[in-house]
């Protein structure tokens, strides 16, 4: 059953067609990688899926609901309730500790719960670093905090934009292991990347080129 379906969406900036009549679908519990060179429309697609942008044309079905024409206020609600975001540059609130950063996500979603936030940090192996400020954490640690933040509200979809782009190999593996865990628990994952290794970890890879889906590759070697 499709959790997310893009139907013939286009995003047009003046002359430029960032996305040109693209259709994809992602099933519930599926782990999909979106690949493509710079300017291929990855980011635009990521923004549209992440409810931070709307397509010029086409339908976006999330959980069966067409969200492509919703006002941005409603999009914020959907993003908050259903999507966990992870960014290449981590993006933490610089003056809040690791646990507080996780709690910010709870704060906007429902109720801050420090115990639960600490547990989430425990899952990414950072319970001991909970009281540290972002500046006191390494890049890998920061990204793990962001993973904890993304999963704290149990979203249906985790959307990661180049999550390992700024990480060394060791940390990349830690993050990918976390993704595997989440996948096993049934979380739907969409990972935008240009790193083939990261794409290979997913079940399926959608390759974008010039705003169109160039090909889709199913990973035969995928291990549950």
């Amino acid at each position, binding site marked *: 059953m499709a959790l997310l379906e893009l139907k013939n969406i286009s995003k047009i900036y003046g002359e430029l067609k960032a996305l040109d009549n693209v259709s994809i679908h992602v099933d519930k519990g599926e782990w999909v990688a979106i690949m493509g060179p710079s300017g291929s429309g990855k*980011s635009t697609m990521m*923004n549209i899926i*992440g409810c*931070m*942008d709307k397509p010029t044309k086409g339908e976006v079905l999330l959980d069966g609901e067409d969200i492509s024409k919703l006002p941005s*206020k409603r999009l*914020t*609600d959907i*993003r*908050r*309730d259903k999507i966990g*975001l992870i*960014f*290449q*540059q981590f*993006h*933490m*609130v*610089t*003056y*809040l500790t690791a646990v*507080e950063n996780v*709690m*910010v*996500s*709870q*704060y*906007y*979603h429902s*109720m*801050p*719960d*420090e115990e639960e936030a600490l547990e989430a940090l425990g899952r990414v192996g950072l319970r001991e670093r909970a009281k540290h*400020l972002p500046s006191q954490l390494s890049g890998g640690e920061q990204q793990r905090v962001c993973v904890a*933040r993304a999963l704290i509200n149990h979203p249906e979809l985790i959307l990661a*934009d*180049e999550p390992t*782009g700024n990480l060394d190999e060791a940390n990349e593996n830690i993050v990918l292991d976390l993704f595997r865990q989440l996948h096993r628990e049934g979380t739907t994952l969409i990972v935008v990347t240009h790193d083939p290794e990261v794409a290979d970890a997913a079940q399926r890879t959608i390759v974008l080129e010039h705003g169109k889906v160039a090909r889709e590759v199913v990973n035969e070697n995928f291990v549950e």
Partner: protein
Amino acid sequence: MTKRRMFLRMVTASLLRRRSRMLIALLSIGIGATILAGMVTIYYDVPRQMRAQMRSYGANMLLMPTEGETLDSEKLAEALDKLPEDALVGASPYRYVRLDMTSRQQSFTTAGTDFAQVQKTSPYFSVEGRYPEAPREILVGGEIAETIGVKVGSDMELTWQPTAKDASGSAEDDRVPGATLAGSAKGFGDQMVYVTATLDDEAKIKEIKIDASTQTPEYGGRTQTEPGFAEQFIGKTLPLEAGEDIDALSGATVTSTAVVDALNAARAADESAQPKTTRYRVTGILVTGGEEEGYVFMSTDDLTALTGEDRLDVAELSISADEAQLTEYAQALTGEGVTARLVKRVTKSETAVLGKLQALVFLVTVVVLILTMICVSTTMMAVVSERRREIGLRKALGASDNSIRGEFLGEGMFLGLLGGVLGAVLGFAFAQVVSVNVFHASIVFRPLLLPVTVLVSMLIAAASCLMPIKRAVAIDPAIVLKGE
């Protein structure tokens, strides 16, 4: 943990962990609040401060005897008791008489007053030399001093003419003062005894004639018939006391006392009718540029001693109060033979000057408020652009526009609170410094100042955040969170 506690935790973390930026914002609010609190304090304190200063323009109320009544020191003191003690700056009694300076054939209007009070009611009086302090010291108006060539340290003989009203009589009078005295007193059985005495040049009794014909010849009548009694008076100076200076005739005590009383009464009557001259020391020349320069000033006590009469013509009052209060005081003082009225020329100009000064302070306060708002707004603007990423992130995490507004407003108001407390304290100190340097007086602390300053600076902080918040809300998370 409740949402509110998380909110407070975020706001305080933002303020505490981003110290340098927040210190700048706090400083700008704090300085604004300081100047605001200071200005407001000065605004309310200016009339109080300036009124004291304005009192250097001279008396603003006059107390006079109501028509047909007289005023004296006692009545004046009674009237002044009706005024609040701290309002009265000074009260100068004045009595005006003409005194002659026979050596120069001049006569001057002389004012009897209280020099300590004059220095309070007329601080603009400028004295070359010094104000009189001891008895028989006087102040001479500059104009008089020039006319008759009097200097500080000179002596002046001034003469009081009791019959001055009868100009022709006093001028032509060539009678030797006190040469002949005639008096009467009640003797035995309430019958009158008459006595006439002639004095020599040294005011000693030369001759005495007693008429006790109304008295019993065997008793009181002997004061007339026995020469030994009358002889006791010769060579003595009046006044005398029966039983001390003069031995009463035995069996005629009443009549003997009556004779002495008659002489004493005659002498007293003669004295008060006599011109009296006293020598005074000039201790200062009064320079005012006004009509006061044409007067001689002496203490009330000296004038009373010279004229034998305690009487006041007018009292000049200097009162620290606004026009409405003065009118109230004037009404309270009027009555019991006393009339009070305002010196309009002084009160009107005082009110006008104070009004203008307050308007000026008010204007400066408003300008400072606007500048503070611009300053805080700019700082908050910088805060917003510095935190674009963070705001974008919060939005991406699901923050609604209202959450973003609330968080920035919360930070702003918290800064306003801190800045307000800081400002109220520093502002009071600032007003104190200004007041001490400009008005030479310290300021009264108004407890209301603290909550008002805090409230106003919170409002200003909130208002200053409006523009930056608008910008924060407009931030597109997709753009600010984009990689690279």
